[in-house]
Every structure is written in C-alpha cells, then in structure tokens.
C-alpha cells in the first residue's frame, strides 16, 4: 500500500513537471516517466495487459512522436507564457488537492453501488468475445488516423 501510494505520488509529480517545465524536451521525457510509473501501478493492480500497453505504446511510441514534433518545430521555445500563470497554476493545484482530500471520501459514499458479479475466464475471452465491436472500432480508428496523417502531409497540387 505504501509502495502504491509512493508510485501514485510520483505519477502526479512527474505529470505536473511535464506541464510546468519550460524545456519542452524535458517535459516530454517526464511525461514518459509518468507513463512508466502508471504502468507499474497497473502491474501491481493485477492488470498486466493494460500495463504492457501503457508502457510500450504510451511511454514508447507517443514519446517518440512528441520528440519528433519538438525537433521539427525548433522555434517552439519562443512562445512566451503569461506571467500570472506561474503563480496561478501551483496555487489552484494546491487548493484543489486540499479540497479533494477533504471531499472525495464523502462523495464516494454517496455513489450507489451497482451490482457487479465477479468475472470468470481469461482476458482473451473478455476481449475477443465480449468486446468484439470495440476491436472493430479500434481498427476503424487506426485506419482513420493513418488517413488523417496522410491527408495532412500530402504534397500540394500544381494548381495551388
């Protein structure tokens, strides 16, 4: 329990660092570290498949895409942020953390308990038999993403 809490604190810490750090490359790397920590949390919650996807895809592939974009847009550091934000962000965040700690437990007891039967079978059964439409949707989403990227990077026609 203590290890899990420490991992979650690290996850929030690195996520906030990814937002606050001024260097975009360091921000992308701390986002990847946060993903790895989230993956370890998933492993410890008996969710190995979600953890593998989180670590390999989010911490690996998405970080590579981010770093590629930062390298392609090399003037990115010149965007000037407003001065007030430096004070507003930590202030609001700390205030919310305090309210969250006070209120969340009371809110949770008001949620009516939905009936849920314990599951049987393996992950494959649930994914392939119970969620077949989701898998078809995933294939459609990947195709849509590929088409979108191709459309955004197409060469200009000579008529333009």
């Amino acid at each position, binding site marked *: 329990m203590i290890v899990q809490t420490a991992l979650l604190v690290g996850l*929030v810490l690195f996520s906030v660092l990814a937002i606050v750090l001024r260097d*975009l490359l360091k921000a992308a790397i701390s986002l990847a570290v*946060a993903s790895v920590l989230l993956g370890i949390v998933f492993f410890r919650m008996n969710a190995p498949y979600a953890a593998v996807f989180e670590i390999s895809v*989010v911490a690996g592939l998405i970080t590579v895409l981010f770093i590629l974009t930062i390298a392609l847009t090399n003037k*990115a550091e010149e965007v000037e942020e407003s001065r007030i934000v430096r004070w507003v962000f930590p202030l609001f965040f700390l205030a919310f953390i305090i309210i969250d700690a006070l209120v*969340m437990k009371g809110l*949770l007891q008001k949620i009516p308990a939905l009936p*849920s039967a314990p599951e049987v079978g393996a992950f494959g059964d649930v*994914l392939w038999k119970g969620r077949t439409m989701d898998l078809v949707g995933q294939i459609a989403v990947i195709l849509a993403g590929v088409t979108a*990227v191709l459309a955004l990077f197409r060469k200009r026609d000579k008529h333009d």
Partner: protein
Amino acid sequence: MIDTWYLYLFFSAALVLAGLLCLLTKRNLIRLFIGIMVIGKGLSLLLVATGFARANILLAQALVVTFIVVEVSLVAAALALIINIYRTTKSLDVRKLTRLKG
C-alpha cells in the same frame, strides 16, 4: 476495498485537474497537447482502479486497451496538425491562430 478506491480516485482527480489547468492557462500548442495526455492518464487510472475495486479488472483492462489505441491515433493526427500549423504561421502560439486570413 473502498479505502484503496478512494486513494486512486483522489490521484486521478488531481491528474485531471492538472491537465485542465494546463489547457486553460498555457499558450504553446505542444504544451496544450501534453495537458490532454495528462487528462488521459488520469482517466485510464480511474478506469483500472474502478475495475480493481469492483472485481471487474478484465473488463476494465479491455476498455483501457481500447482507450490507449484511440489515444495513439489521436496523438498522430494532432501532432501532424501541429506541424502543419507551425509551417503556416511559423510559430506555436495559439493566439496567432485567431488571426484569420481570407
């Protein structure tokens, strides 16, 4: 079981708020997108934690895997869009996008 669920919900709410504050206050397009990714992390933590607390971890995992695939597709399309915006306006400032040219 309710105690651990409370802990996970606490941290995922903190993540979602951090991402929302980033979206509201920052001006760099890549930084805004990092905020969206942080919100996504909070939501997937919420899904898996609820599945863990209710003994429905397999269904929660299936939903998180779907969510991650959708997220990758979103990231690829949005980063391509950001690169195109940079080529057009020579900057990553969101405020420059409000200037319309006919």
